[in-house]
């Protein structure tokens, strides 16, 4: 029986009762608290929250019914804050994981290889030629240039030195 009790943690209601004991009755601490570090820590937090609220509210004798209602609400809010403070770490982790997933999703299209915009091959309507066609194109242009002796740098006639000078280069210089 005791074993079962030590395994089952104290509920919020039990912790609340321990943190704000009834007036006049001594604070009875269950033996579970001495065994369970988590429950003892929770009780400590509850007590801290109650103390904070009490500090904010001022002397008890001056309170009106609205002040009591306000204090009650404030206490409940403090309790809720305490209760939700526990999953704060997992929540932070969750936000981090979500951010990482979002970044991954955004970066994914950049990693994907871009598909060719137009099909390649002889029937393609794209203006760019294939590597072989480019080489052939260059060959035909060179042949046309050489065959018609249009080139200026390689033609033998341009190599004849200028009359009156030893070298054509000297004339230019």
């Amino acid at each position, binding site marked *: 029986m005791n074993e079962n009790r030590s395994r089952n943690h104290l509920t919020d209601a039990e912790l609340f009762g321990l943190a704000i004991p009834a007036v006049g009755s001594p604070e009875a601490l269950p033996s579970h608290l001495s065994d369970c570090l988590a429950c003892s820590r929770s009780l400590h937090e509850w007590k801290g929250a109650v103390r904070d609220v009490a500090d904010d509210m001022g002397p008890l004798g001056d309170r009106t019914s609205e002040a009591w209602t306000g204090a009650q609400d404030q206490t409940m809010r403090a309790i809720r804050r305490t209760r939700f403070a526990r999953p704060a770490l997992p929540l932070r982790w969750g936000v981090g994981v979500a951010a990482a997933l979002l970044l991954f999703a955004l970066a994914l299209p950049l990693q994907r290889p871009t598909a060719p915009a137009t099909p390649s091959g002889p029937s393609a309507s794209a203006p760019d030629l294939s590597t072989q066609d480019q080489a052939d194109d260059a060959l035909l242009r060179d*042949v046309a240039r050489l065959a018609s002796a249009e080139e200026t740098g390689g033609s033998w006639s341009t190599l004849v030195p200028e009359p009156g000078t030893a070298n054509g280069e000297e004339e230019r210089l």
Partner: protein
Amino acid sequence: MNRRTNARAAIRFFVLAAAVAGVALPMLSEQDFPEGKWWKRPRLAAEINLSPEQSREIEKIFVNSRTRLIDLKADLEKKQLALQSSMEDRGADRRTVEKEIETLENARAELQKARALMVLDMKQVLKPDQWDHLLQLQQEMRERRLMAREGRQNYRQGGPFRRTPNR
């Protein structure tokens, strides 16, 4: 008797061939056939209504001439280099240079002939109006290029707004 007739026929054939080559080759080069692989340019092909069959046929003609064109081009370039080094050599023998010029021009003629015959075969594939249109497009392109070149020269000489002085 038969031998003499054959010799005459052969001479006649060579004279005729030389005449045809002498007239046809300059004509083809003057017309300045479109450069490069024009049949692979989609816009040009569409402009002259080139069918896929014609394109394939022209490609085949080019492929058949390609190896010879590569060889002749390399030969011409080698001869150009040889002549260039002779011309740069002050002590070069006049006879040697003369021979090199001859061989260079012969190589050029060979290349020109190979190109002209290839163009001639390509021309056979096209319909007359396609051929005319192709030459017309080439002419337009050449004029545009010339105008652009003149514009650049004018700009270099005195800027785009330079005017010739009034006399």
